[in-house]
């Protein structure tokens, strides 16, 4: 192979572009996810009211809403391929690692868009105090990265099960608990005026570890 590295990146890039284009044309996944996030956010906000002076509770609620929105939508990237029976096509043109990385990047883009809608709305509706933006955005970014790496791998597994989407939340949750715990703690600290550096580092380390393991495991994803 003359330039395996560049053809690898080209394949990942092509898959990411295809995902974005398909999603843009159908908007099925994103609409559902945003609607879900806004619904759960409204439900929480309506039920508990404004919580300006309880930033500890706010941190937990924010991540619970984000976690559930992610759990409701991140398996979509793979389930859609299986249900549309297009996985054969994909497997014929790209290696499992290329496919999974393309999907991972798409899930990251997806989460970014989802958060761009949900987070400002959350801050306004819940009457949250102004976050320290540097730390807050770093937490969102590293938290999303960690969420996406685990959720992408579990999504690939789940799409091959009988119930498809049904098991996704339950099977992902154990892997996402460390992310939830660290992200909530960091967000709470940043609202309390402390530093979130440890939590950001922790989230990045978790994302890197699961991504590393995933890269070793992707090759085994599809064999039948």
């Amino acid at each position, binding site marked *: 192979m003359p330039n395996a590295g560049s053809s690898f990146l080209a394949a990942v890039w092509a898959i990411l*572009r*295809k995902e974005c*284009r398909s999603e843009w044309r159908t908007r099925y996944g994103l609409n559902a996810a945003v609607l879900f996030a806004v619904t759960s956010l409204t439900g929480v906000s309506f039920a508990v009211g404004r919580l300006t002076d309880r930033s500890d509770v706010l941190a937990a609620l924010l991540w619970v809403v984000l976690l559930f929105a992610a759990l409701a939508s991140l398996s979509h990237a793979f389930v859609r391929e299986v249900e549309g029976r297009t996985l*054969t096509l994909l497997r*014929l043109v*790209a290696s499992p690692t290329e496919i999974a990385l393309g999907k991972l990047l798409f899930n990251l883009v997806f989460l970014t868009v989802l958060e761009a809608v949900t987070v400002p709305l959350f801050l306004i509706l819940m009457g949250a105090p102004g976050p320290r933006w540097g730390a807050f955005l770093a937490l969102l970014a590293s938290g999303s990265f960690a969420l996406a790496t685990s959720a992408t791998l579990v999504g690939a597994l789940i799409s091959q099960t009988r119930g498809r989407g049904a098991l996704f939340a339950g099977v992902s949750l154990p892997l996402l608990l460390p992310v939830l715990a660290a992200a909530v703690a960091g967000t709470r600290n940043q609202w309390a005026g402390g530093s979130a550096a440890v939590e950001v580092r922790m989230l990045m380390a978790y994302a890197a570890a699961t991504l590393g393991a995933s890269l070793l495991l992707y090759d085994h994803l599809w064999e039948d």
Partner: protein
Amino acid sequence: MSALRETSVGVVGTEAVRVTARALAHRYGPQRGLEPLSFEVVAPAVVAVTGPNGVGKSTLLKIVAGLLEPSRGEATLAVGGRSVLAAERRRCVGYAGPELSFYPELGVTENLTFAAMTRGLPAPAVRVRESLDRVGLSRHGTERVAALSSGMMQRLRIAFALLHRPPLLLLDEPGNHLDDEGRVALRAIVAEEGRAGLVLLATNDEREWRLAERRIELSGRGLGHSA
């Protein structure tokens, strides 16, 4: 068409594609999908795989394409004297089968361009046009896949298989849904590809296996087993 063909693995001469099956078998759960089988085919050739329904024709093609791990035995592919691992098969194999589906929200050209770019082919637009020409789909390039008839879809599958000019072509029931014009195009493609490379046809349609110079007949032995 010259005897030398360019592929993504380099320049390959004639007689350079060899598919070997050794005690190859597969089962889906309790039922057998493919009875143990051994054969060897070498390019240039057109080989038909025939046999009753459920005997494992599609399974055999999927294993050769690297889409399926066999339960027992092995199917090896050698191109230019070098053996190609299952993980790298997609670069040298063109596969078209009935379960191959395309993205309905994308157009015909968009689907093929996606495939060409993901494969890392040089000049993807040229390859796509060339493939569409060969199956007679050029005028339908901008149509959404969701709007295609089943005959058009079948042509698109064949175009997809030809896209990267593979030395080995695996066609599972290629004549499905094709009209007369489509069958003429298919016959031309099979003849042309079989002159230089290797074509494996899984079919029970006499019109198709007549195109082949050799037949691998899968027997139905073992089909009577029930769980």
